[in-house]
Structure formats: C-alpha cells, structure tokens
C-alpha cells in the first residue's frame, strides 16, 4: 500500500502553489513535510483529502485514484485529516465529535435505531467503546460530556487528532498538529504519534517544530516554492545545505532553523490564545 503523487499540480489563477510534484509515501512510516511559509504544504494536504481540487496530475492510494472522488468518498477510503486551523464540531460533546465519525458505517441502520431501542443502545454502546478507548489514549476521557468548543486550546488539538484516528485511517494527514502547544504538550503529542506508528498506516505530518519533526519522522520531505527540494532521513536533512538555504537564506546550522521554528511557534501561540 502506497500513496502516490504523480506530476501533481495546483494553480490558483497565476500562482503555482504545487509545481508538478511526483513522490510516493510508504506505509508504516511517519513522513514529515516541511518547508517555509507558503511552500505549499497545506495545499498538498488539502488536495489529498479532497478539500481542494487538483489542477493536473493525480493522487492514488493503492493504485486507486483519489483525486477523482468527492471529499466524503475520500474520507470513506479511510483518509483522515486535521486542519491547520482547528475545525471541531464546537457545540457537540467531545464524545459526539468522535461518535459521528461512525456515520458511514452505521447510517444504514438509522431507521432500525429509531424504532428499535435495544438495537440503538447496542450500536451506541459499540461506538462509544471505541471512542472512549481513543479518548483515554489522548487523556481526554474526563471531558467526554463537555462541548468541544469549550475545551482548552491544547485539548482541542488533541481531540481533532483523536477524531482523525478513531476510525483507524490508512492515511493520516496532520497539518501543524503542534501549532500553539506548549513544550509539555508537544512532548506528549510526539509520544502519542510515535505510538500510533502502525504497519498499515501512512502518516504525513506538516510541522514547523523541528524538534518534533526530527524526533518523530522516519522520512522528511522538504518543499520550497511548490517543489520538492529534498527528501531523506532526519540526519540527511539536517546535513543538507540546500535545506538550510531554503529556510534561512544563508543559515549555516540547524540551531538557526530551530530558532525560526521557535519564533513561529510563539506567533501561533499568541494567535491561539486570541482565538480562545
């Protein structure tokens, strides 16, 4: 099972956001997608998940085209995602935010749920068991009945990742999962994502926090101006002069990249606090 981009291209009018990208992602690994602001990382995630259309080229999972499907059909091919700006169902409880993910599997039994209470409780119980498992994994079990919108920012990030994981996706797309988290929360997130490295899952993480990327990822893809600049292990990326140039112009060590990432995190932290 692999995820393949073939001459993938995205244009917004005259702006070329993704410029003929060809690459593939192996299962069982966590792939880091990094690059400066505006490099096209989110665009790539959005096209894979079906949020944006593809200008030309193709995306295929297991040889099956994804780019011709509608967004909900892509999700039903077990491609799950989080968003750069958190998008939860704010006025639903934490538990409901996860439960609703079983809609594609359970919608056929809706009328039976309505008229036959024992069936409804059995289904609900089954759904909730799975949801509670993943909530416990993210240490959110105490919030099960709280509205998602009233959770603290860091917990909202965790819940969004939990929502992406609850139906055991084959492809997990995370757009800046650590944005706005403090050191402690980022460390917890890193450990949890590492624990979710399962053999039949392709995980792609877009992230500016180099610490997290270097610790977590098996393979790193560096993007610049919509093109693939470099691909390799964390050690290879750190050693690559091209990457340093792309990030900082004339930087000569990884510490400066980290400092830039730190700056950005501080920025996002402020944005996050304003939001809540």
């Amino acid at each position: 099972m692999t995820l393949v981009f073939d001459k993938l291209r995205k244009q917004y009018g005259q702006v070329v956001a993704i410029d003929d990208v060809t690459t593939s992602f192996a299962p069982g690994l966590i792939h880091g997608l990094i690059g400066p602001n505006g490099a096209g990382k989110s665009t790539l995630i959005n096209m894979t998940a079906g949020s944006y259309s593809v200008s030309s080229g193709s995306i295929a999972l297991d040889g099956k085209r994804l780019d011709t499907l509608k967004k909900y059909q892509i999700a039903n091919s077990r491609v799950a995602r989080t968003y750069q700006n958190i998008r939860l169902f704010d006025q639903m409880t934490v538990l409901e935010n996860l439960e609703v993910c079983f809609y594609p599997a359970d919608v056929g039994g809706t009328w039976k749920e309505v008229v036959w209470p024992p069936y409804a409780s059995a289904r609900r119980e089954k759904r909730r068991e799975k949801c509670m498992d993943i909530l416990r994994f993210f240490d959110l079990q105490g919030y099960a009945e709280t509205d998602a919108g009233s959770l603290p920012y860091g917990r909202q990030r965790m819940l969004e990742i939990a929502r992406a994981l609850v139906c055991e996706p084959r492809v997990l797309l995370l757009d800046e999962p650590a944005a706005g988290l403090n050191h402690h929360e980022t460390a917890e997130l890193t450990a949890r994502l590492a624990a979710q490295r399962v053999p039949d899952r392709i995980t792609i993480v877009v992230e500016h926090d180099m610490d997290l990327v270097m610790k977590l990822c098996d393979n790193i893809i560096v993007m610049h101006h919509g093109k693939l600049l470099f691909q390799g292990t964390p050690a290879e990326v750190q050693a690559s002069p091209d990457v340093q140039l792309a990030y900082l112009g004339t930087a000569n060590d990884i510490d400066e990249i980290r400092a830039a990432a730190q700056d950005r995190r501080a920025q996002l932290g402020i944005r996050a606090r304003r939001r809540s």
Partner: protein
Amino acid sequence: MSVAETLTAAKPHSGRAISFLVFAIAIALIAASPFLPNYYVRVINSLLIYILLGIGLNIVIGYTGLLDLGFVAFYAVGAYSYALLASPQLDLHWPFLAILPVAACLGAATGILLGIPVLRLRGDYLAIVTLGFGEIIRIIINNLDWLTGGPKGIARLDKASILGIQVARPIDFFWLLLITVLVAGVLVWRLERSILGKAWAAIREDQDAARGIGINTTNAKLAAFATSATIGSIAGAIFAASQRFVSPESFTLQESVLIVLMIVIGGIGNILGIVAGAAILMLLPEVLREFAEWRILFLGLLMIFLIIVRPAGIVPRSFGPDKLIRRLFGK
C-alpha cells in the same frame, strides 16, 4: 465527579421543582381536556398542531442548521391532499387512514424537491430561496382553480373516521393530535440521537469538516428535508380534516415565520423548547384577547425580553427530554 459533571450539574433543586411544576400542569391540562368547553379544546388543538409543525421544522432548522422559511408549503401539501381525496371536489372519498400515507409521501417528495436546488445554499440565501418556494406553492394553489378551487378554497370536506370511529368533535381531534404529537415527538427525538442525528449536528457545526469525516452531506440534508416535510404534511392533513375546509389563506408566509419564532423562542434544536415556544405564542394571544390591538406589541416586547435574558431559548438545547426524564424520575 469529573470537571464536566461539575460544570453541567448547576442548581439541580430549583430546576427539579420547575420541571415537576411544568410536568404537572401538562398532565393536568391533558386530564382536564375532555371536560373543557369546545372553545378551549380548539385552542389546545391548534397548540398541538403547531407543536407538530415545530417538531417537523426543527429537524431542518435546529438539528441541521438550515434556515427554512418555506415550511408552510408542506403543511399545505398535506392539507390539500386530504381536501382533494375526501371531498366532493373530485368526488373522491378516501378514508382518513388511506390519505395519511399519501400525504406523507407527497410531503416527503415535495421536501426533496425543495431540498435538491438548495443543497449548495446556506444562511440568508437559503432562507430567501425557501421563502420563495413557500410562496410559489401558495400561489400555485391560489391559481389552480379547477383543482384547488383557487382563493375560495375547498369546502365540505368529509368527516374523518378512523377504523370505524368517527373523528369529528374537537375532543376527538384532541386525542388524535395528542397521539400524533407523542409518536412524532418520540420518533424525532430518537432520530436526533441516532447516528443520522449526529451527522445533522455535524453539518450544522461545520459542513466541510463533516464531509471530511465521510458524511455524504447531500443525502443527510435531503433526509432532513424529507422527514421534516413528512411531519408538516401529516399536520396539514389532520388540520384539513378538523377544519373540514381549506383555502390558501391558511398557508401564508406569516405561518412559516410563526413556526420559526416558536422554535427560536422556545429553544432551537430541542423538542421541549418547541412545546414551550408554541405554548407561549399560541396561548398568549388568548390570554390577551381583551387587549387585541396591543397583542403584536406585547409579542414584540416579549421577544426582545427573551432574546436578552435567554438567548438560547426558554429551554436550551442541552436540556433535552432525556435530561427532563432523569430529573423527574432519576436520582
């Protein structure tokens, strides 16, 4: 006790007393109905019809978050189904129980007919298009003289009878409506709690994110429109049978707006709220009958007052029927 429980368990005692009081009044009202003069039974009947309409429209507005201002169209479809199939107009005299499924199906079909063109619309645009749809249906009825009798309407509808029992007096309709409201209320409440109900809520909160977790929003929205329209249509059929006369005047935009107001004042997305909203909007004019000229003013002031003190409605979404039952009979 978890943080969540502490936060939600506010003031259980006063809440419980109020719940009991309201519950007792409702039971007393139901028990007293057979002994009330016909006039009051009619008022209660129209209250029940509005509750039924509110339960239907709430599926689209409250659960799915789509502002539909053309709901009265489905009410009209149901009413005219009865009027045409049980009157001298076409010289058809079907039994009530045979008309009900026809009205329900026609209602559902009309609901889907409205649903398809507005799938892409939300908010204000949706409100305007649905409003137009309601008016189109009314104008069609008004102009289709050969079929609907035009502005004169259709009179001398058959007396309804169910399994040989005649349903003609106000009190008969009271029982019919009470049963219908209870059945519809329970079914719709269970629908809200089903997986489809959760999907409706997700669409209401963030349609695009809902697609992102695999919800076919087209189907889910059409299901909402269809169920909502079915209930509206059934209410219309019962309304026609009880009035034994229909005319386009009963299906104006004002009716749609009234039902929306009931939902908003009572508590959007909550069946208990609809009961409260309908009670206020229906009973207030009766109580204030002596001050007829001032009624609209009172209503306006009441609404401003409620929007300030209870912006989420009299009974907020979080206080659903399950909470009420737990508070009345649970620990």
